[in-house]
């Protein structure tokens, strides 16, 4: 188990800045997910942790060891950082059998043969490859290759696991199963894990905390439920959640400090944010739809009905404004039907239009 500290890390490629002054603390045994669109710097950050990239500025500490420091001119090579990594492509060596692939790291560490063999048997059995250890990677399915990569990581028992989109090459079903397994191995080993993905479901289901990145900067670090309920800015709000959050730019209507409108719809957020121009963030499930008139509700036309198994997604239109609402699966809504919808004020997030930052309820007047 090891804690990891990242301080003011900056990495540039020519004129492009891949990481801009990134600071981060990772607790021992934590499962931390780096989430973001492609090009956001999440893989660069992971590779800096691994030692495969040399940052331009900043410091990385693992446990008690400074593994990188631009100021103190320290750069511990990857092999000496005592960590394991699973690559997106698995990076299995095609000319070695499954067993030799897993054994390589032990060979480099000069592990005594009986210990190594015992460890190999245990690890290969654990990941369910006990019977396949003499096969070559090309003779395995995608899921099995993934397990070999995992076994290779586990064999040397590193206290830190790094994973670079390890499940992105698997089909959807297998991905579900492997999520559970990865989580199991990680908690058994109690290893501090940093996991890169662009798949938010993966991030939400596996992590203890999620780091959302954009353009080389950290947008938010939160446990998954908080990330979903209280995105710190409109980018995170928009990036997390499927179907997407409704973001409506609105102005104070002048009648009440908590009432806003965009001309088509009126929303009372229930408290006074203290800004005239705001963006209201409403998750599709925060909109209640009914066929009969309700208090505070406004009438909308249903412009699309998208049934999706356990839920149904409705597109509602009022004037030029469209909203997405989530309703239960047992519904009989049809297109062009008129319905009443109102917002669950307690669940709404309010952002300052100018900065896009969340306005804290306690700070509101």
């Amino acid at each position, binding site marked *: 188990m090891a804690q990891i500290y990242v301080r003011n890390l900056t990495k540039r490629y020519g004129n492009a800045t891949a990481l801009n002054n990134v600071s981060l603390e990772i607790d021992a045994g934590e499962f931390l997910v780096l989430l973001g669109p492609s090009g956001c710097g999440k893989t660069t950050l992971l590779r800096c942790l*691994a*030692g*495969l990239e040399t940052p331009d500025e900043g410091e990385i500490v693992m446990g008690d060891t400074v593994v990188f420091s*631009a*100021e103190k*001119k320290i*750069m511990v*090579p*990857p*092999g*000496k950082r005592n*960590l*394991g*990594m699973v*690559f*997106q*492509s698995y*990076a*299995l*060596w*095609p*000319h070695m059998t499954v067993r030799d692939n897993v054994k*390589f*790291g032990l060979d*480099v*560490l000069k592990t005594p043969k009986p210990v190594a063999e015992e460890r190999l048997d245990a690890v290969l059995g654990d990941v369910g490859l006990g019977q396949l250890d003499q096969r*070559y*990677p*090309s003779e395995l399915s995608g899921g099995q290759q993934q397990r070999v990569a995992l076994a*290779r990581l586990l064999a*040397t028992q590193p206290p830190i696991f790094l994973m670079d989109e390890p499940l992105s090459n698997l089909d959807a079903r297998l991905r579900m199963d492997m999520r559970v397994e990865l989580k199991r191995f990680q908690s058994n080993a109690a290893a501090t894990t940093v996991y890169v993905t662009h798949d938010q479901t993966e991030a939400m289901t596996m992590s203890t905390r999620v780091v959302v990145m954009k353009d080389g900067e950290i947008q938010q670090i939160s446990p998954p439920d908080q990330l979903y309920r209280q995105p710190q800015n409109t980018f995170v709000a928009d990036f997390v959640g499927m179907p997407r959050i409704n973001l409506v730019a609105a102005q104070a209507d002048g009648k009440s400090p908590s009432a806003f409108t965009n001309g088509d719809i009126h929303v009372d957020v229930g408290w006074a944010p203290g800004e005239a121009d705001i963006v209201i963030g409403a998750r599709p499930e925060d909109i209640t739809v009914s066929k009969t008139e309700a208090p505070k509700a406004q009438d909308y036309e249903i412009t699309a009905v998208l049934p999706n198994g356990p839920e149904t997604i409705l597109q509602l239109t009022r004037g030029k404004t469209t909203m997405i609402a989530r309703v239960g699966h047992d519904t009989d809504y049809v297109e062009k039907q008129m319905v009443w919808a109102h917002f669950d004020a307690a669940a709404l997030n309010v952002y300052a239009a100018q900065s896009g930052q969340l306005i804290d309820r306690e700070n509101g007047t």
Partner: protein
Amino acid sequence: MSDTSQTLHKSSSKFQRAVTDPVNIAMLLLLAVLAYLVIWPFVQLVIETLTWGQGDRRISRDAIPGEFTWFHWLQATSGPLSSKMLYGPLMNTLITGIAATILALVAGGVLAWCVVRSDMPGKRWLQPILTLPYIIPSFAIALAWEAVFRSPKVGGQPGVYEAFLGTAPPEWLSYGAFPISVTLAIHYFPFAYLLVAGALATIDSQMEEGALISGAGRLMTLRRITFPVVAPAFVAALILTFGKTIGQFALPFLLGAPTQFHTVATMIYANLTLGLDSLAFVLAIVLITMSLVSIWLSNRFVGNKSRRFETISGKGFRSRVIALGAWRWPVFVAVALFAFTVGILPLILLGVQSVMLIDGFYGLENLTWHFWVGRSNPEIAFGEPGVVHNNIILGATWNTLKLAFISAIIASVIGLVIAYITVRRAHNPLARALDQIAFIPFLFPTIAFGAMYLTLFAEPVGPIPALYGTFSLLVLISVVSRLPYSVKTGVTAITQIGQELEEAAELAGASWLQRFRRIIMPLASSGVLSGMMVSFVGVMRELSLIILLITPSTRVLMTVGFGYAEEGLAQLSNALVLIVAVLTIIGELILMWIGKGKMARLREKQS
């Protein structure tokens, strides 16, 4: 203030890391060694032509050995000997080079079209035969030509032509520009054929079909679509073939020297045997310049045109075969006859010549195995024993195999290391410089390259001993001359190995050497192995590269064969060249087998 000192510190730490990185060490080391082995010899060659030599005191009273002079250049360009030494050979080189190139391109182009685009039968087994003349030493073709058209007027016994027709062949048919051009064309048409076939294979028939649909006739399609698309490759092939022909030494020497017909390449050799070293070096520089210009021109063509004509689109690509109809079999017969004449007949001729007791006398009673298995007989061939009892030949065989084997392995490993540096450090200007230096030997005509090494290693320089006359020098020049090819093979192999495979090993703590040995080498091995075989065959049949550097103790098969040919011992030289030809063919067959079998299997595993 503190900002500056911080940046200074940082760059110094980067510097420290940079100089302890084994890849950087290898890069700097290779740069230094290759600069000495590739660039410095050329500089040395130029200096040599611009200074008085020891031997020059015989020629000029002004000669002060070691002092600067334009004498050699003036002597070559405007002296009384200049027409014989420079302009004559230059004209001859241009004439034979251009004639051979045109012949080779026409033959290669027509054959390429037949094989790639027509429904001619028997393509599969005609194709390897058509590449035979390029695989066997060019010297073999010249010897076969001589066997047919040799004329007693110039010396020696009559050839097949005279023996059967009763009259001596005209001299222009036996020696000089005509036979040199034709045999050069025979040797190089497969090269042109491969280049043009490659270009033709990239044409998507849909482009032609598109023209047909818009109403263009077949001829118009050919003229407006097919030809313009292939044209850049065709022109590049033209220039490259020319560049290759001008460096040929053994072939023009054998078919030109008896009648004092010299090309620049043969003149270099002739001058060196006369002791006119500086003059030979001037000619070597002239030859290098010609080669540089031709390669530069061809690169310009390929660089400017082919990118615009990028035709490989991946999806929906298909090549339509054009039906020859009634002409199918006549075309096949013509191509097969041609293939037999240029590919197989020369080898048969060499074989037949090697079992004739007295050459030029065609009868069953004249047949003998003496030149293969006979012991020394003072009445035959000045007492030279047959191949299997001849210590010179046996020694040369051993030397040949040793040289080819050692050179191929060293060239491949160094090529792989250079390729690794080039691919993995693509952004480092020094890595790019290394890549370019390793390519330079490709630009030197081989005989000129040999001449450079002759000047460079004649005397000890600092810690480097005088390597002239040693086997090491032959290995050195063979390795360096193969580098352009082995680096290319290596680059192809390394690019196929994903960087993550190596990073995974790096994370496991493997050092660079461990990674290179356990990950890179095994994964690149299939590609490198076939590259090694190519080098093995290439070194084995090489003559002009090493002819100037050979001494009696370091003889190889090709130079012994050349020596016998010079002495007029046709049977023995035929036998030797036949041996080399057969060895190279075996090598190529192994290569084909590796390519089809093992490599395909390994590649499957990698994907």
